[in-house]
Structure formats: structure tokens, C-alpha cells
């Protein structure tokens, strides 16, 4: 089992969702706790302990279930929201902001999906067409074969075409969703980087080739696909290596089934950057030519950002993807 210990809130131990996870994990032992917040993040658990002692907490999410996304977060001018159904991720990307965002790397899975869906309904009724994103605080598909929550959401999005769903992932775990009928308003988006950066920085994630195979499978089944080239990490050969991945992508993903491609260069808040340097002092990610940029974040200089983004955007246009489907994520 990938988890060292499992902790379950007493109130949800009989919940179908909880039982389903335990069954999928073939877990026979767990410890009952009162409330997750009395333990998880209560003390600072070092991020890299996820390598050896990753724990799982199951409980009910209190407080905000859906939050408004920041400016330049998503494609199109429609309002964007992200919803919180889990915290943390089984992968270990060296640039991941979760290492400085939460005080514990332990995974939390929330059980109150019905509450999230009710709130989605209220928001859609109020604002009209809008986007809901999964994967802000966790990978939306990595554990989906255990959690199996997406059929619930599918029903809502089938009946509410104004609401759009993005499932953001770095995994190739499409078992749970490939059984579902593709919907026009549901888009599965894959974060990709060139093979060199993926190997260096995306630890424990499926190789790029495996992710491409998963994309092809979903394309063949009729799903709408989005791509995130984000974060792009500079190295002297980046143009060559990104062209290689774009060439592979154009062979399997026709523009007709592409929802959008987002481009973003690596960036950190100061706190996250300090954590990255602490966790990966010998990694190339900790020694990039960064500066403190216009919004206080740690990034490449503006000329380098512009050069990288413009050149990769041009590669995508040369590969016959429509320019209007390409957007720059979190850039002014």
C-alpha cells in the first residue's frame, strides 16, 4: 500500500466513499480520529517525508469548497473556479507549490462531493457559463481509481452544459474516466514538459510517453483534451526538446479535439522557492537564473520569459494548432 497509516474521521467512517477507498486499497486497519484539522498540518511535517511515510486522511471538508480562481488562471473570459476535493499529491514534482503551501505532505481525501456539486449548481445558476477546475491542490486523476468520484460529477455536468469541468493531471491513470461518456463541457487536461525536464523534475510521475498514450486513448474515445506546457523550465536545448514533444502531440491530438493549450514558465512565491531550495539543493531547479518579478514572485527575467513563451507558442502554431486556443497562464 502506498500509505503508511490511514486516519479516518469518525463521522465519515461509514460513508460509502470511505468504504470504497478502503476496499480499493485493501486496507484492513485504520485509526479513527475526531477532526482532520486537529492533526493534519497542525505541526510542520517535512515535505520529503512523503517518500517514506505518506499518510492518508479521510474526512469532511469544512469551510470553502469552491474558490474563485485568480486572474489569467484559465482559458476564455468566463469566470473560473476551482473546487477542493483533496489535498496533496502522490507525485513529487520538484517545482510543485504544494511543498510550500501546506504544512504536511500527507494526502487528504474529502468525502462531501455532494456538497461541492450543490455549490457548483448555485454558482452556475447565479453567474451562467463558467469553469470549474479540479487539480489545484491535488492531481485530479492520480488516485481516481481508488476514489471513483467522477461519475457523480459527470451527472451534474451532463445536465448543466453551461458549467464546464477541467480535470487537470500529470498522471496516465485514465481507468476511472474512460468508462464514462465523453461530454462537450468536460475537458481532461494533461501537464506535459519536454522529456529532459520531466525526467529531471517530475519525480514519480508517469513518463511523458505514457502520458501521451493516455491522451491518445482519450482522444480515440472522443474526449476533449487540454494541454498545459506549464511550468516550462529553461535549458539551452529547450526549443529542440519542446519541438520534439509538440511533434508527437500533433500526431495524436487533432486541433478539433483540443480545448486549449496553456503556456507558463516556472514561477514561485518566495516561500515556495525557499522550500524548493531546501528540499532540492542539488537540483537544477534551485539554480535557475531567477529574479523577483513584478508581482513579487520568483521567475525568469521578463525578456527570457517572453522569449520562451513566444518561441514555444510559434512552434505550436507551426504544428497547426489555432493561435486563439493558446493562452499564457498567469502572465500579465
Amino acid at each position, binding site marked *: 500500500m502506498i500509505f503508511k497509516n490511514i486516519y479516518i474521521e469518525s463521522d465519515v467512517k461509514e460513508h460509502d466513499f470511505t468504504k470504497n477507498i478502503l476496499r480499493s486499497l485493501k486496507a484492513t486497519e485504520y485509526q479513527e480520529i475526531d477532526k482532520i484539522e486537529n492533526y493534519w498540518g*497542525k505541526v*510542520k511535517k*517535512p515535505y520529503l517525508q512523503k517518500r517514506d511515510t505518506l499518510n492518508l486522511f479521510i474526512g469532511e471538508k469544512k469551510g470553502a469548497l469552491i474558490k474563485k480562481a485568480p486572474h489569467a488562471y484559465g482559458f476564455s473570459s468566463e469566470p473560473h473556479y476551482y473546487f477542493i476535493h483533496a489535498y496533496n499529491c502522490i507525485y513529487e514534482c520538484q517545482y510543485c507549490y504544494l511543498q510550500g503551501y501546506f504544512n504536511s505532505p500527507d494526502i487528504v481525501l474529502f468525502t462531501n462531493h455532494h456538497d461541492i456539486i450543490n455549490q457548483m449548481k448555485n454558482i452556475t445558476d447565479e453567474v451562467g457559463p463558467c469553469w470549474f477546475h479540479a487539480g489545484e491542490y491535488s492531481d485530479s486523476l492520480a488516485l481516481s481509481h481508488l476514489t471513483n468520484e467522477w461519475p457523480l460529477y459527470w451527472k451534474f455536468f451532463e445536465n448543466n452544459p453551461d458549467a464546464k469541468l477541467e480535470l487537470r493531471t500529470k498522471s496516465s491513470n485514465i481507468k476511472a474516466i474512460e468508462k464514462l461518456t465523453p461530454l462537450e463541457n468536460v475537458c481532461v487536461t494533461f501537464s506535459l514538459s519536454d522529456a529532459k525536464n520531466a525526467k529531471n523534475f517530475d519525480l514519480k510521475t508517469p513518463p511523458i510517453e505514457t502520458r501521451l498514450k493516455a491522451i491518445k486513448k482519450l482522444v480515440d474515445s472522443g474526449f476533449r483534451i487540454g494541454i498545459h506546457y506549464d511550468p516550462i523550465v529553461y535549458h539551452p536545448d529547450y526549443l529542440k526538446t519542446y519541438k520534439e514533444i509538440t511533434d508527437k502531440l500533433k500526431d495524436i491530438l487533432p486541433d478539433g479535439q483540443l480545448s486549449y493549450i496553456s503556456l507558463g514558465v516556472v514561477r514561485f512565491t518566495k516561500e515556495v522557492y525557499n522550500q524548493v531550495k531546501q528540499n532540492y539543493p542539488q537540483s537544477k531547479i534551485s*539554480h535557475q537564473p531567477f529574479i523577483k518579478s513584478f508581482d513579487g514572485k520568483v521567475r525568469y527575467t521578463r525578456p527570457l520569459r517572453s522569449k520562451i513563451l513566444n518561441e514555444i507558442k510559434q512552434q505550436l502554431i507551426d504544428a497547426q494548432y489555432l493561435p486563439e486556443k493558446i493562452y499564457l497562464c498567469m502572465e500579465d
Partner: protein
Amino acid sequence: MQLLVFAHRAEAQIFLKKLPYRWVSTPFGGYYQGDHTAILLTGEGLQNATESLSSLLSFLGDQISEVINLGVCGALDESIPPNTIYSLRTAYCENEFKSFSTDQGKEALDCFSARQRITHKMDKKRLSVFAPLVDREVWAIGSVCKRFQKSWRAYKIVSDIAATETMCGEIYQDAAFYSQELYQFYEKNVSQWVSTQVAGSREKLPDKLEKQGFYFTFSQRNLLKNLFEKYSILNDVSEKKFLDSRLVQELKKQKIKPKLKSEKLLHALYAELFPLQQEIVEKLEQIKNNLKKENIHFEYDRTLESPLVNFQIDVSQPTTLTSVPLQEIQKQLGG
């Protein structure tokens, strides 16, 4: 000198018998000094450990190279066998957000420092979510070592399962056994580690370069350290390979002052690390010099982050704004 920290004298008794320590009178508790190691007895609990260790490190900080905490702990996880010695990975504490970690890997266990002895099963169950071991001092030792920038480790022998029937007196009776076990473990695993650490210390890069005709000021030494660290990691270049590189060898041969050699080396390293930035700055500097001839003063953000530039023009002098290459400046700042 390596400092061995114990809470109780009983835990340290075999160390004090076997090694040639002498008691030193200090205002901060039991302190015993040997040739290469010293022992501090702090007394039980977080407060005692904090006070004793921080006083000692304020007093003798430069002499202490590493702090090793040794002692007895309880198990919160019932599957942990008694009388086993564990190295500790991370120390947590009740009502304290911060945690302190040693450099020990996955074979090590985490430990929770409790403010009181754990006598109730409910407390044991609650704390077991945080760590499998419990003691009374290690968090304080980690905290003080972090403040004093000392490397530290901790090794604990498990005496019993917390909140069981075991009485303190029973543990005290077995103290000689625990101390003996800790001593044997220390002799076998810990003292050898220290000797390899000492053997590993070596000459620094600026010193090596200075032997080859370079000269670095204090700030240049720091700059070299930062640039070379980036350069070596980004380009997978070892220190030896760098010293043998054409860049260093050619600079070494040049008949210029040592300080100028160092400046050229730092400049070359910077250009290697930030080629685009270097190229843009050189072009903007060229534009700046050309504009100066036209009595136009041009300034830009040296980090290249801001797209705002400033021009100062003396209107009393005959000049023309058409000589300002705005498009070229925009192109450069746009990468």
C-alpha cells in the same frame, strides 16, 4: 568537539565510566569534558533542555562541532519493540508548529516531545498520529541547535510502550542497561561517523584559484561561491574539471593583475549562466552610449524586469528625438 546530551545522569552513567571525562564547574548544570567529546546533563523536560543547551552553546559554541542527543524514550506505536535503539528523523512538540529534523534517512523514526509524561491511553492514541516515539527533550535540542546552527542527531532506546503500567522507578532500575546499550551503539555507529566527517574537510575553490595567480576580495569570494554553485549544478561540471577548463587555464596564463583575472573569471561565469541577460545588457549599454553622444540620458531596469525606461533630454541643447531607437529597446526588453 562532539557534545553528547542526556537528560539524566543515569542515562549517561556508562559513558562517564568508560570515557575520561572531567567535571567542569559551570552555571548551567552537569558538564563533563573529555578530549574529543563532552557530556551535558540537562535535566528532564523541554524547559531544562532548552536552558542548559542554549547556555552551554552561548558559552562554548565555537568549540562544539556537533550535538548528539542520547537517552530513553517511550513508544506510541505498539508494534515498536522495547530495548531497541532508533535514530531520530524529525522532532515534533505539543502546541508547537515548528519541527526540527536531523539528516537521518528513512530508517529513522520521528519523535514527539511531550510536555508531561504520557500516562493516559487517549493521549497516547492522539500523539501516535504525529510520531511513533515520545520523549521529553529532543524537540528542544533540535530547536536550540537550529538557532545556534549546529548539526545534530538523536538516538533513543525504547524503554516501554507509553501509557502502560510501567512505573518510572522500573525504568530507573534498568538505567544501567539502557546506558550500556546506548554506549555500545555510540561506539559502533556514531563516534566513527565523526572521524570521517573531520577527514572530509578540504580547501575552498577561491583558495585553490589564488594559488594559481588569482586574487578575490571578500565579496568576490561570495560571488564566486554563488556563481560556481549554479554553474557546476546546471552544467554538471566538477570543481576539478572547472579548474582544468580552458577558461581558467587561459586566464591563468594572461599577464594581468590577479584582481583583474578574478574579475574576468567572474564575468565569464556570469555570461555563461545568464547568456540572454548578458547579451541584452550589452546591447542596451551600446544604445546608452550612442544616445549619450546625442545628449540623451537613457536608463533602464538592470534586472530587465520592468519595461519602463527613462530618457532625460536637455532641451537647451540641439537634439532630435528621432535618434531614440525605441523599437530596438522594446525588442531587447521583449527577449
